[in-house]
């Protein structure tokens, strides 16, 4: 097994894998059946929305229940722009920028107030957004909503509509995912992680939590706007119901199901958002709520870290079967993971003793999961 892992790590093998994925993405829409193309396009839309939510919540730890509001605004801007015959590139830029600016303004005020305020403000966005959309009917078409037909395939491509739409979604989604991956892998990502870990530590290191929370929130709303644009590419119709509060809660659930704070997790989250209802429709369409509740709880029960932690869990279980040690208790692996993520910075206590003691960085007094919990479950 170790040889294979080595093999995979080689640079040129990784390039071949990337090449294969690209080839697949280019050719797949041509050969897949229509409904699969349409489903994949919808998964792209909501994967981008979940990615945006991850930037502000998964990576920076700020609770946001308002992501669907930015998707809705992006969709409305697109619908208005298309119906007003603006150039499609201009429409795309506005669909991203306007929600981004709204997000910036809101976070400038809310970020100063700390966690609860941001959660409350983001809950308010979709709830106030729906009646506001009905009221501004000259822009939004009011409660009838507005449709914008602009994503049918142009003749020179010789493609069917579903293929053309899927290509647009794949292209934009790939770019957004790559840019975000570089963002969170770079210094911004590390800053977000520290702000998520402990704001007091962040400020003691010269990282202003306020600035990074505003940045994360703005990027999330910008990505939300892009998801709104893609929503219009796929659905070509939007109404106040698009930004209803219930969807925000489902987006949050999808983020956690996919795997919070992970790029691949966002993709899996988008897939869950779209496929879960289709799965429950196939089983029994009058039991949607019961089945979705069961699916959600089942996944979280088996994989608290979300679908993205499946390979890690599978590897750990195979490794720990090797020499029968106590299965890595939550504390073991989690604190190990925590140590690698949060760089070793936390001075053990405000006043470090002068005693000749090697100042081992004890993590800030954690609320350690009691091994006793595990003991009780075993006895």
């Amino acid at each position, binding site marked *: 097994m170790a040889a294979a892992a080595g093999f995979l790590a080689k640079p040129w093998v990784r390039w071949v894998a990337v090449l294969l994925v690209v080839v697949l993405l280019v050719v797949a829409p041509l050969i897949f059946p229509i409904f699969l193309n349409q489903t994949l396009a919808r998964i792209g839309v909501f994967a981008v929305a979940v990615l945006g939510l991850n930037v502000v919540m998964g990576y920076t730890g700020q609770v946001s229940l308002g992501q669907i509001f930015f998707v809705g605004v992006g969709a409305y801007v697109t619908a208005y722009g298309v119906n007003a015959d603006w150039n499609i590139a201009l429409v795309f830029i506005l669909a991203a920028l306007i929600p981004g600016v709204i997000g910036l303004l809101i976070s400038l005020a809310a970020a100063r107030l700390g966690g609860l305020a941001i959660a409350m403000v983001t809950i308010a966005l979709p709830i106030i957004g729906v009646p506001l959309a009905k009221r501004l009917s000259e822009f939004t078409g009011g409660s009838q909503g507005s449709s914008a037909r602009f994503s049918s395939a142009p003749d020179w491509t010789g493609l069917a509509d579903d293929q053309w739409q899927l290509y647009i979604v794949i292209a934009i989604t790939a770019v957004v995912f790559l840019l975000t991956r570089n963002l969170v892998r770079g210094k911004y990502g590390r800053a977000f992680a520290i702000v998520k870990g402990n704001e007091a530590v962040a400020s003691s290191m010269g990282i202003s939590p306020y600035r990074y929370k505003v940045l994360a929130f703005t990027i999330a709303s910008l990505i939300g706007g892009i998801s709104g644009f893609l929503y219009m590419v796929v659905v070509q119709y939007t109404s106040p119901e698009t930004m209803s509060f219930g969807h925000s809660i489902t987006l949050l659930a999808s983020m956690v199901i996919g795997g919070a704070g992970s790029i691949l997790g966002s993709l899996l989250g988008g897939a869950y958002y779209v496929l879960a209802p289709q799965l429950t429709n196939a089983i029994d369409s009058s039991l949607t709520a019961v089945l979705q509740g069961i699916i959600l709880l089942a996944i979280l029960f088996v994989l608290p870290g979300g679908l993205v932690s499946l390979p890690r869990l599978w590897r750990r279980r195979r490794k*720990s079967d090797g020499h029968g*040690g*106590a299965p*890595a208790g939550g504390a073991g692996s989690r604190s190990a993971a925590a140590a690698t993520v949060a760089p070793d910075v936390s001075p053990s*206590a*405000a006043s470090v*003793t002068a005693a000749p003691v090697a100042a*081992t960085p004890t993590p800030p007094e954690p609320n350690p999961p009691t*091994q006793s919990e595990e003991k009780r479950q075993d006895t």
Partner: protein
Amino acid sequence: MTLLELTDVTAFYGPVQVLDGVSLTVPDGGAVGILGANGAGKTTTLRAISGTVRAGGSITFDGKDIRGMRPDKVAAMGIAHVPEGRGTLSDLTVRENLRVGAYLRKDRKGIESDIDYCLDLFPNLKERIRSHGSALSGGEQQMLAVARAVMSKPRLMLLDEASLGLAPSTAKNVYQAIGRLRRESGIAMLVVEQNANLAFTLVDTATVLETGRNALTGTSAELKGMDEIRRAYLGG
């Protein structure tokens, strides 16, 4: 008469073995120290006793086997564990912290008089009686942790590095108060401490742990001078 006896106690954190056969005894009313460098397994030994980590080997208290017992059951037997990091109940006031300590006791008058005794033992806590645990300084939180343990009227107190993160003068005050507590209450104590000098002000005998095993055991006097102690600290 032995109150607590550990024989060949082992413990794991996941695949990592931390204790590899630790043995010690604490006589009724006695005080024993556990010394050693970082990672020697001092804290894990206390955790094995109080049931917060799974352990092998045998642990008996007052003749009864308590290995594998749930922490609250171990506490009910009369063992009070003052944890590393002090376990302060940050959302509760100082008085409420103390009343939580006396959760298992029914004697209302006894509880009130013990609260007064604790406030006398730790004067700093008296003015801070109303403030919340989170607002206390490191030293005050350590005093509160010891006071909370006293409130449960234990027969044995496990003290985990009471001096950690305290200014030397504060650490000395805490230990003086604990010394007075030991003289007046006769509670047996098992003291884990990095600062050997502070420990010797309290304990009669001590054992030095090295990579999860007893390297050396002896009375405070014997251990004080020996270079074993220095080697155990500075590493081989």
